[in-house]
């Protein structure tokens, strides 16, 4: 029973996806019941897996009993177990809101929407656990294809944004596939552990470097690492709210996880960071530049969802930089930031979704007086915003703390990155206080109009996950010490 647990995590939403498609045609209510049920099941299983992994070490599960390196192997190390839990929890919370939004945005097509939605989630689970380089490509494409569709379900320019994403996403996936091809030619294996054991003898080879470069560029496109970010802002801001609450928190974060997986499970940190002199510094500097440029672009936006999309791009820079600083503090920060950023983005996108639900759009200008109209939504939004800025004791402060500490420890060459993080925090403060100011002050200036604005909160389906995510941000912040000690430190890849 327990030995098949990892598979159940990803099988539950996959099965539910097909049942939803059929049952949803007959009875509308089944969509909610099935999706929430399946995700709840996944969440519980994921928690059990995490507990097992922490207690007994990495689980290696051979799918269908075909032994590695020939069969597909699922490798659940503490980091993937953490990712499983993160995906499950975020998806579960997002689904409440997505159900409400989908009813409004896609009436009568919810069962189709949730079929794709659930397949996407099981694809994400698959990415987190797979130990096979080619299987990873397949999972990557499963998540991408469903995402293309989910984005294209939006109104107006959404299909165009989706098409651009198709083109960019495919280039990314193809680069990844090419990299895998090189590795296969070199080692004759697709199993990550197997490749890792064979490769060291060839580290000097330029083919290995080429493979590594292809793999990296592939995941960088998928995670929208500036300057490869072009597809993201349109795709995320034009997608239906029900889609963006799921993909915004998870897609970029899982790609960062994949980058860590490639570096640590296929190659080795020594190879990735130190074999080619200068590459490490260049990438950290690129990350710093990415943070600065994306923050600057976020300043220019007049739409909440677009602004948040650019912030996501900046946050990707945080994590890439953190990983490539290659010291314990920075790696802790990067992994903690994967968790925190997923929750912060979830919180903010849930708030945006609730605002769109009531206001019809997410333009900053239409948010006037929102503190009176939707006080609870805005309270949660404010906590999310503080976390993005990095105000203690919200979660965002602590991952930033470790990232900056890592930057300081790395030495003078990394000061650019530290400066970029600080400047980005300041820019975030400007970005969010601009919104808070608009929402706090009434239109028209003088006070007294407040009474005329009726209180009109978002519906309970959207409000409850939003408040939960906000509370989670505070709770994680206050529990940062034990969390890092018991979850993040064990999840640090071997060698750190």
């Amino acid at each position, binding site marked *: 029973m327990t030995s098949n647990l990892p598979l159940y995590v990803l099988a539950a939403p996959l099965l539910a996806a097909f049942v939803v498609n059929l049952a949803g045609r007959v009875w509308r209510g089944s969509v909610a019941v099935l999706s929430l049920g399946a995700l709840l099941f996944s969440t519980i299983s994921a928690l059990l897996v995490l507990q097992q992994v922490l207690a007994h070490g990495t689980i290696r599960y051979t799918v269908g009993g075909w032994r590695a390196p020939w069969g597909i192997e699922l490798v659940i190390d503490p980091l993937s177990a953490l990712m499983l839990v993160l995906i499950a929890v975020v998806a579960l919370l997002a689904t409440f809101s997505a159900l409400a939004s989908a009813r409004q945005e896609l009436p009568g097509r919810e069962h189709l929407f949730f079929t794709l939605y659930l397949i996407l989630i099981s694809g994400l689970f698959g990415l987190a656990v797979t130990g096979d380089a080619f299987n990873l490509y397949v999972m990557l494409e499963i998540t991408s294809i469903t995402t293309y569709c989910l984005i294209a379900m939006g109104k107006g320019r959404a299909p165009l944004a989706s098409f651009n994403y198709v083109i960019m996403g495919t280039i990314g996936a193809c680069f990844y596939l090419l990299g895998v091809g090189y590795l296969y030619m070199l080692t004759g294996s697709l199993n990550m552990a197997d490749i890792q054991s064979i490769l060291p003898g060839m580290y000097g080879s330029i083919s290995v470097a080429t493979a590594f470069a292809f793999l990296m560029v592939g995941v960088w496109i998928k995670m929208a690492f500036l300057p490869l970010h072009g597809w993201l802002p349109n795709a995320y801001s034009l997608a239906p709210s029900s889609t963006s609450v799921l993909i915004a928190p998870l897609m970029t974060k899982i790609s960062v996880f994949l980058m860590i997986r490639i570096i640590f499970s296929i190659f080795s940190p020594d190879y990735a960071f130190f074999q080619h002199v200068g590459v490490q510094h260049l990438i950290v500097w690129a990350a710093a530049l990415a943070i600065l440029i994306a923050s600057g672009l976020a300043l220019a936006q007049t739409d909440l969802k677009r602004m948040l999309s650019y912030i996501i791009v900046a946050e990707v820079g945080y994590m890439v930089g953190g990983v490539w600083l290659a010291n314990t503090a920075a790696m802790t920060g990067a992994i903690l930031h994967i968790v925190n950023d997923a929750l912060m983005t979830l919180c903010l996108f849930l708030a945006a979704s609730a605002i769109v639900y009531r206001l019809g759009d997410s333009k900053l200008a239409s948010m006037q007086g929102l503190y009176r109209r939707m006080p609870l939504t805005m309270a949660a939004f404010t906590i999310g915003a*503080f976390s993005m*800025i*990095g*105000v*203690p*004791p919200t979660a965002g402060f*602590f991952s930033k*703390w470790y990232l*900056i*500490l890592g930057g*300081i*420890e790395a030495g003078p060459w990394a000061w650019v990155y*530290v400066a970029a993080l*600080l400047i980005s*925090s*300041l820019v975030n*403060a400007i970005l969010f*206080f601009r919104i808070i*100011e608009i929402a*706090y*002050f*009434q239109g028209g*200036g*003088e*006070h*007294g109009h*407040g009474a005329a604005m009726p209180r009109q909160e978002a519906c309970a389906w959207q409000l409850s996950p939003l408040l939960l995510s906000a509370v989670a941000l505070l709770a994680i912040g*206050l*529990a*940062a*010490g*034990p969390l*890092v*000690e018991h979850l993040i430190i064990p999840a640090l890849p071997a060698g750190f």
Partner: protein
Amino acid sequence: MNIITSLLPVAAVGISLIGAIFIILANRRPNLRESVTLLIAVGKFLLVLSMLPTVLAGGGFVFTLAELIPGVPFQLRVDAMGMFFALVASFLWICTSIYSIGYMRALQEHDQTRYYASFAVAISATIGVAFSANLLTLYLFYEMLSLSTYPLVTHERNAEARVSGRKYLTYILGTSIGFALPAMLIVYAIAGTLDFTSGGILSDTGVAPGTVALLLILFVAGFAKAGIMPFHGWLPAAMVAPTPVSSFLHGVAVVKVGVFSILRVIFDILGPDLLRSLDLGMALTYFVSITILAASLIALTQDNLKRRLAYSTIGQLSYMILGAGMLTASGMTGGVLHIAMHAFGKITLFFCAGAIYVASHKKYISEMDGLGRQMPITFGAFALGAMSIIGLPPLGGFISKWYLAVGALQADQMPLLLVLLTSSLLNAAYFLPIVYRAFFAAAPAATTETGIREAPLLCLLPLSVTAICSLALFFYPNVFLRLVEMAIAP
């Protein structure tokens, strides 16, 4: 030392945080809401007071709330220095609460619930800063204070409030994230801890002199609430807030949190010995001397009473840093003591400015000719407050300035003594004319008939109390003096 693990400091910090929830719940019932405010104000003071005997006996309280980062817990600790500040702040909060009720009701202000709730959170943060056991905890409460005062500064919600609010956050949040946060991280990277330790935590680490200088600059710039030039611009702008906010937050809590943070850093993080050996203390004193003189000169030119008080505050705050920077026993005593002396004096002055506004709707000094004859109590208190700030006996301000002057002599720095004397003269030059005008100048004919009377009792009472306290502190400074001596004792 007898350190007791106890929930008392948590209760002292938390009571107003919990109280804020009750204030929000009592939204539609003003009497209940204001009773809650008073209740938690008195409760907080009593909680702080209950810890005083132990602290005076050389003991302390400590409580760890959570482990945030390895070696840096979220921890509250009551020591002499924190006690000193908490005592001043929590006592003055009672006065401010009473005054707020009088002021807000007299002016029939809007959104009073939000006002009282934000105020309660702000005082929690202030006491939190006082009782922080390490720099990270302090930073946490420091930011909490910045954010909770934003709704208070922008209370008017008009265009001017909007601009001021923006300026306020830009200075306060910008400097704390941009300067204080990296400084804190550098300290952590070097020392591996952020605990406030008497004598500093950097002395034994063999840190490079350049780094210490950099840290001092970052911290002084980072805690911009202390209003040291060039990071003072937010304070005059914040005067757009209702007067009780200006008086308590921008006369006492917020600004002194800034000073307190810098003093903590000088005493317990960088360490006086380290600074002395690198001559950085003296550099700091000369730097803040500029602020002392410039702020006093600018204050002379202000016609808006609250703005004049704001610039006066900026100047006086730098006295405290000046004293600490001298790194001599008397100088440090004077610097810390000035926190209390200035608090009582300045809050009286602000209360008076508010009372004048409530009674006559006058904001400008040029309109106040002859007003003292109609409002004798208010202007009497104003005169006492002003004398305390100038440093005349028999008022509290004299004592701290005396210590500062002695400190300057001990450090053999005649220029600093000159700065202190010049500034006192300037203080007199911008305060005494107001008193003179109010009592002795002929009132414009029109106002005599309008029948301006004293402000409501709830406004008058607190300002009388704080004025009398200023007076009393000259004769009975012992408790505060003892606490300060304990705080600076190595």
